[in-house]
C-alpha cells in the first residue's frame, strides 16, 4: 500500500474537451490520464488520479477551458494498492 | 474707389477651401499619402487639423491611410482620406469592407481627369457596394458638397466620395467657407470607446455580419442584403442634378464636375445666340439621376456627352436615354504634358465647336479632331 497526498484537485468539463492531451504531459506529478470512454463529441477526456498539487498547469495549457483548480485546506490522503511502479520522487 | 471683398471671403486654392469645409463639417481625422494633384489637400489638413484638436497623419502608404481612417471612424470620429485615382486604387479592398462595416468614411478623389468615373461609381473594390459620389462644379460648390458629404455619410452610415480634380484643387477663387446647418443625427452608440468592456454587451464593429455571444448576429448573407438594401433607399432619396434649357432643346449636352462649368458656359452662350441646346449636370454621380436625365433628354434629337476620358459616364447616359435618341461622345482624353492636369480640350471655344457640330450635323457628324497637348 502507498499513501498518496493530494494537495489539490480539479473539476473537468468533459463535454467541452477535444481530446488534445496537452494536459496529460503538462501535469508535473503526472496524475492525469485519458479516459477509455468518449464524450458526446467523440473525444476521450482526462481523468484525475490521486497526487494533484493544485499547480494549475493543466488549466494553463488547456485550449478548451475545461479545468477549474482547487487547493485543499488540508491535504487529502489516499491509500493505493501497489500493483504498478510509482514514478520516483513523487509523493 | 476700391472694391472691398465681402466679409469672410478669402482668396484660396480649392484644396484649402475643401480642407476648411471638411473642418467646418467636424472632420477631426485625416490620413493621406502625397500624390499629385491631391497633395495640397493633405498639406492644408496637416496644417489646420491640429489646431482644432484633430489629427492628420502623413501615412506611409495609401493602404495605411484608409486603415487609419477606418479606426478613427470606428472610434466615432468624423474621418476622411483621399488621394488621386491611382492612390484610391490601392484602397479599394478597404473601401468595400468599410462599406460593409457601415462606417461613414468620406473620400476625396482629386483626380487627374474624369477617367475615374467607373472607379468612383461602380466601385473599384470587390462585392456589392456603392459609395455616394458628389461631383462639384467649382470651389464654391465643393465647399457645400464637402460638408454635405460628411452629413450624408453619417445619415446613411455609408461612405461618400467627393470627385474633384486638378483644376478644382489648384484654382484660386475668393471663397467664403460658411459652415452649413444640417439636421441633427443620432449619437453614434455603435462606436467603440472601450466603455462596454466586461459588460456582456461590448461592441463589435465588423464587416462580416458576426456578432457577440448572446446577441443576434445577422450572419454574412443577411448582413450583405441589409447593407445593399440601404442602397435602394439612397438611390431614391439622394439624387442631385442641375438642368437648364432642356424643354425645347434639340441637342442636350451632359457633363459633370469642373468641365461641366465650361459646358454650361458654352450652352448659355449658344442659347444667347439663338441655338436650342440644353444642359444636364449630374451632381450625384451615384445615385445617378437617371430619371432627370431621361426627362431632360426626352424631347432631344441628339444627346451629347462631354467628359475628359475615353467614355465612362456615357454608359449612365445610355441607361437613362434607353435608345430614345442617339448619344454622341464629344469629349475625350485630354491632359497636360505631366498627365496630372488640364488638357487643351478644356477650352470654351473648342467645346463650343464640338457642341455646334453635333447640334447642326446630328449624331453621325464627324467631329473636329481632338486637340493635342504641348508634348505633341
Amino acid at each position, binding site marked *: 500500500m502507498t499513501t498518496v497526498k493530494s494537495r489539490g484537485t480539479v*473539476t*473537468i*468539463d468533459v463535454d467541452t474537451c*477535444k*481530446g*488534445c492531451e*496537452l494536459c496529460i*504531459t503538462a501535469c*508535473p506529478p503526472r496524475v492525469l490520464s485519458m479516459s477509455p470512454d468518449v464524450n458526446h463529441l467523440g473525444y476521450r477526456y482526462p481523468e484525475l*488520479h490521486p497526487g494533484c498539487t493544485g*499547480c*494549475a*498547469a493543466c488549466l*494553463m*495549457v488547456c*485550449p*478548451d*477551458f*475545461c*479545468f*477549474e*483548480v*482547487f*487547493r485543499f485546506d488540508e491535504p487529502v490522503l*489516499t491509500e*493505493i494498492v501497489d500493483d504498478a511502479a510509482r*514514478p520516483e520522487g513523487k509523493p | 474707389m476700391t472694391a472691398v471683398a465681402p466679409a469672410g471671403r478669402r482668396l484660396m486654392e480649392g484644396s484649402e477651401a475643401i480642407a476648411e469645409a471638411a473642418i467646418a463639417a467636424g472632420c*477631426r*481625422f485625416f490620413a493621406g499619402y502625397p500624390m499629385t494633384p491631391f497633395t495640397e489637400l493633405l498639406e492644408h489638413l496637416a496644417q489646420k487639423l491640429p489646431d482644432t484638436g484633430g*489629427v492628420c*497623419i502623413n*501615412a506611409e502608404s495609401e*493602404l*495605411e*491611410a*484608409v*486603415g*487609419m*481612417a*477606418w*479606426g*478613427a471612424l*470606428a*472610434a*466615432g470620429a468624423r*474621418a476622411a482620406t483621399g488621394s488621386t485615382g491611382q492612390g484610391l486604387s490601392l484602397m479599394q*479592398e*478597404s473601401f468595400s469592407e468599410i462599406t460593409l462595416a457601415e462606417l461613414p468614411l468620406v473620400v476625396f478623389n482629386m483626380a487627374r481627369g474624369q477617367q475615374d468615373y467607373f472607379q468612383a461609381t461602380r466601385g473599384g473594390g470587390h462585392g456589392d457596394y456603392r459609395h455616394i459620389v458628389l461631383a462639384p462644379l467649382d470651389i464654391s460648390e465643393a465647399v457645400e458638397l464637402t460638408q454635405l458629404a460628411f452629413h450624408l455619410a453619417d445619415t446613411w452610415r455609408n461612405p461618400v466620395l467627393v470627385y474633384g480634380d486638378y483644376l478644382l484643387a489648384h484654382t484660386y477663387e475668393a471663397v467664403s467657407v460658411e459652415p452649413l446647418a444640417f439636421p441633427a443625427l443620432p449619437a453614434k452608440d455603435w462606436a467603440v*470607446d*472601450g*466603455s*462596454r*468592456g466586461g459588460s*456582456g454587451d*461590448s461592441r*463589435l464593429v*465588423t464587416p462580416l455580419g*458576426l456578432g*457577440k*455571444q448572446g446577441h443576434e448576429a445577422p450572419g454574412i448573407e443577411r448582413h450583405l442584403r441589409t447593407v445593399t438594401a440601404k442602397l435602394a433607399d439612397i438611390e431614391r432619396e439622394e439624387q442631385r442634378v442641375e438642368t437648364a434649357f432642356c424643354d425645347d432643346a434639340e441637342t442636350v449636352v451632359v457633363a459633370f464636375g469642373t468641365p461641366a462649368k465650361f459646358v454650361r458656359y458654352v450652352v448659355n452662350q449658344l442659347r444667347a445666340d439663338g441655338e436650342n441646346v440644353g444642359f444636364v449636370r449630374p451632381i450625384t454621380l451615384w445615385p445617378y439621376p437617371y430619371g432627370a436625365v431621361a426627362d431632360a433628354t426626352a424631347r432631344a434629337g441628339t444627346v451629347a456627352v462631354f467628359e475628359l476620358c475615353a467614355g465612362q459616364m456615357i454608359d449612365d447616359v445610355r441607361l437613362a436615354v434607353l435608345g430614345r435618341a442617339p448619344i454622341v461622345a464629344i469629349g475625350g482624353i485630354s491632359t497636360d504634358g505631366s498627365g496630372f492636369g488640364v488638357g487643351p480640350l478644356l477650352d470654351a471655344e473648342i467645346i463650343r465647336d464640338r457642341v455646334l457640330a453635333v447640334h447642326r450635323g446630328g449624331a453621325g457628324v464627324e467631329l473636329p479632331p481632338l486637340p493635342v497637348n504641348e508634348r505633341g
Partner: protein
Amino acid sequence: MTTEPTGPVLDTSAAPDHARKVADLKPDLLLSQEHHMCPGCGEPLALRVYLEALQELEVTRRSIMVAGIGCYTAFTGTVDVDLVQALHGRAPSVATGIKRMRPDAVVFTLQGDGDMVNEGLQEVLHTAARGEKVTCILLNNGVFGETGGHMTATSVLGQRTKNSLDGRDAEYHGYPILIGDLIARLQGAAYVARGSVHNAGAVARTKRMFRRAFESQLGNEGFSLVEVLTMCPTGWFIPTGDGPDYMHETLGEVHIMGELKVDGAVKTTEELHHENVARQREVEGALERGGLDR
C-alpha cells in the same frame, strides 16, 4: 516520459468541499469557453493570459481590441471588450486611428503571423516606427492556419507546410523573418517580447510579458509587441499531443523566447537563446516543487 498514473479515478464533476478555488475556468472577459479552434490549438492559451492581464490591470472598461483575419477572428464573438474587425494585415493602422481618437483607451491588436508578417509587415513596422501607443499581439504558429497550413514569412527552414512539402528551402523559399528583432531596433518601439505557450511555465512567462506590454502602453512609452508562439497541430500535420515538443524543436529554435526590448535595452534573438536556457531550468525546478506563483 510515459509513466501512467496509479490509483483510482477521482470525481472531477463538481467543486470539492474543504478547498479553495485557485484558478477559474475561463477569464471573465471571455463570454464563453466554447470555440471552434482545433484540438491542441495554442491560440486560446494566449487569449486567456492576455485577457487576464487586462483584468488585473483594471483596464477592461477602456480596452479596445482590433482583430486581424485568421482562426482567432472567431474570438471576436466571445471576447467581451469593444472590438473592431480589420482586414488581413491591416489591424495596426486601424489601431492607430482608434488610439489617436481615443488616447485614453488601451488599444491592442490580435494578429497571426500570416496576417502581421506577410500581408501586414509594412503596417506593423510603420506603426512601431511612429511609436504609436498601441500593443500588437502576434500569434505565431509559422503557418497560415485558417487556409490549411501554408508557409508564412515566419515558417522556419525545413518546416513542412502545404506549399513547402519537402520543407522550407533557403534557396527556393528564402529565410524566415524574426519580426521581433526588426521592431526592437525601431526607436518608436518601447517593449518587444516573444513568448510561447508550449508548457505552463512558458504560459506564465508570456502572461508577464503581456502585463509589461500593456503597462508600457499605459505609461505612454511607445509601441509594444508581444509575439507568442502557439501550437497548430492541424497546420503542422502532427498529433495534438506532439504540438508542444514539435513547436519547441522547430519554431522555438529560431523564434527564441524572451524580452527583446525593455527599458530602452535591446537584445538580439541570439542573446535571448542563452538566457532562455537558464530560465527554462529554473522554471522546471519550480514546477517540480509544486506550483508557480500565478
